[in-house]
């Protein structure tokens, strides 16, 4: 078995994603434990090779560049087929458990006739096995699982393995797709980017999130203003709010939405239904603003403020701006 590890250098729209660097960081953990090398595999349309240096700087010993015009959009069938075909030289494959990674990992694993250890937040690497910790039961239970299949296919939770500067050679190998991407049965006809300036919920160090306590969709402006005052914040919402169409479904934090653990989570007018807490309870610091002092959100908030969110938010925004200006 090869001690080398293949990492999925996730990109979208020609940009290398943080998830790709996190996959390299997690792959390094396996490769370093086994004395192997990390090769990152990067798919994209013409010009994608520009990201090779960044992958090398973050721990990739080598980068396999698979360039094809059809990779302007994600192409899960051709990507998975190419990765699976490359795996003969590797003992493990690692990707982030992002929307794209979660789509790719099981395809690759099934092609290789092995299981996948999904969404790991920690790994212990032995010569012939990898033990992972994986949160389940809406974050209420930590499962420890041991993967003995070869090759090992692992996806890692975004934010669990942080990218770090770790200069390696980053030598380049150009490769062709293992199947014709233009012939894939699953065709992505459009990738609609949200606001490019907007931080993603999974990547933002601060999340300001709103619930029914905001009373109407227009009042989300107050949440957005506070997020803008922090400067490094994304905006989230409860299911009640996304169900009512105040915010898009993709903003939903909770059991059936996004699972987040930012450094700071500011819950504005959120009562703290189990469904919501499941998505944010692992945040490092939690602030809650709610008019009902019996609201369950206060049971897990490090700093609770009882009061009308519509009155408090503008004051908080002004104070945060002041603090940031100092």
């Amino acid at each position, binding site marked *: 078995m090869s001690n080398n590890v293949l990492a999925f250098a996730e990109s979208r729209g020609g940009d290398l994603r943080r998830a790709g660097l996190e996959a390299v960081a997690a792959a390094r953990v396996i490769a370093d434990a086994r004395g192997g090398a990390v090769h990152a595999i990067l798919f994209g349309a013409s010009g994608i090779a520009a990201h090779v240096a960044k992958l090398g700087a973050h721990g990739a010993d080598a980068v396999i560049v698979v360039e094809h015009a059809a990779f302007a*959009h994600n192409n899960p*069938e051709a990507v998975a087929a190419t990765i699976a075909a490359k795996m003969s030289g590797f003992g493990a494959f690692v990707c982030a458990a992002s*929307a794209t990674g*979660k*789509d790719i990992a*099981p*395809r690759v*694993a*099934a092609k290789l006739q*092995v*299981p*996948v250890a*999904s969404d790991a937040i920690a790994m212990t690497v032995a010569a012939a096995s990898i*033990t992972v910790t*994986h*949160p*389940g*039961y809406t974050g*209420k*239970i*930590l*499962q420890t*699982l*041991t*993967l*003995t*299949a070869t090759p090992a296919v692992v996806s890692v939770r975004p934010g669990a393995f942080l990218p770090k500067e770790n200069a390696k050679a980053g030598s380049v190998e150009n490769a062709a797709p293992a199947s014709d991407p233009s012939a894939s049965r*699953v065709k*992505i*006809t*459009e*990738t*609609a*980017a949200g606001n490019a300036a*907007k931080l993603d919920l*999974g990547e933002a*160090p601060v999340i300001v999130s709103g619930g029914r306590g905001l009373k109407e969709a227009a009042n989300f402006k107050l949440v957005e203003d506070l997020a803008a005052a922090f400067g490094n914040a994304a905006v989230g919402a409860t299911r009640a709010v996304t169900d009512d169409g105040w915010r898009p*479904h*993709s903003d*939903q934090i909770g*059991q*059936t939405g996004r699972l987040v653990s930012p450094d700071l989570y500011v819950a504005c007018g959120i009562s703290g239904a189990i469904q919501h807490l499941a998505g944010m309870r*692992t945040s*490092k*610091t939690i*602030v809650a603003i709610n008019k009902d*002092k019996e609201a369950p959100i*206060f049971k*897990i908030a*490090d*700093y609770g*403020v*009882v*009061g009308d969110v519509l*009155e*408090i938010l503008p*004051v*908080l925004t002004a*104070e945060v701006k002041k*603090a940031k200006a100092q």
Partner: protein
Amino acid sequence: MKIAVCIKRVPDMDVRFKIAPSGKAVDETGLKFDISDFDGYAVEAALQIKEKLNAGEVVVISLGPDVVQETLRKAMSMGADRAVQLKADTVPADSFAIASALAAELKDGGYDLIMFGRMSIDTAHGATGAMTAELLGLPVVNAISKLEFDGRTAKMRRELEGAYELVECALPAVVTIDEGIARPRYPSLKGIMAAKKKPLDTKPAQLPAPRLSLDTLALPPERAAGRIIGEGSAVVPELVRLLKEEAKVL
């Protein structure tokens, strides 16, 4: 259209879990069980397709011990036509093993569409649907929040972080369902009565030896108890001071 929906029986999450003495399972005392959240959306989406076309069949499949029959009956009380239990003493942790057993059942079923939830809400691996598709040699689109048909072509939307994809795929195909597609209906009394007479086949699950095994379950560390620092906008300066000096997040 002939549709299969693969569903899992899971405990209600709205509880404080305890770990069983074995360390490898949750203590099921007092727990209520139901169809896993995303699987419920898949059942509802399948029923809506059948109702819209006014033709076809919805078959629900679940792998596990005999208690999954209750989950299959629930799906039939919502409107599924028949059910298959792939009998196994326990549901393995190994997604490849589960996918192998499901693929063995599905391969000769003549299904136009095979649906899964995007992940189970308990073990939360999110791998079974895509793996089953690969083993069947069928195309798969994961985590879709919209599904429409143009003849034999499925047109779908998939949410990404801060973006979405519009995806097309010809049938037969496998899809895994995200929230947003359909809210599951409550079974009617008539539906519950009808479900008792609908066919439920039981077959042994053809599970290969697992290569991903569960070592232990553990409860995550408890958060420190919450603290209310005050009322009204007057406490905001104190909040900001705490964020800066104590939490060091500003």
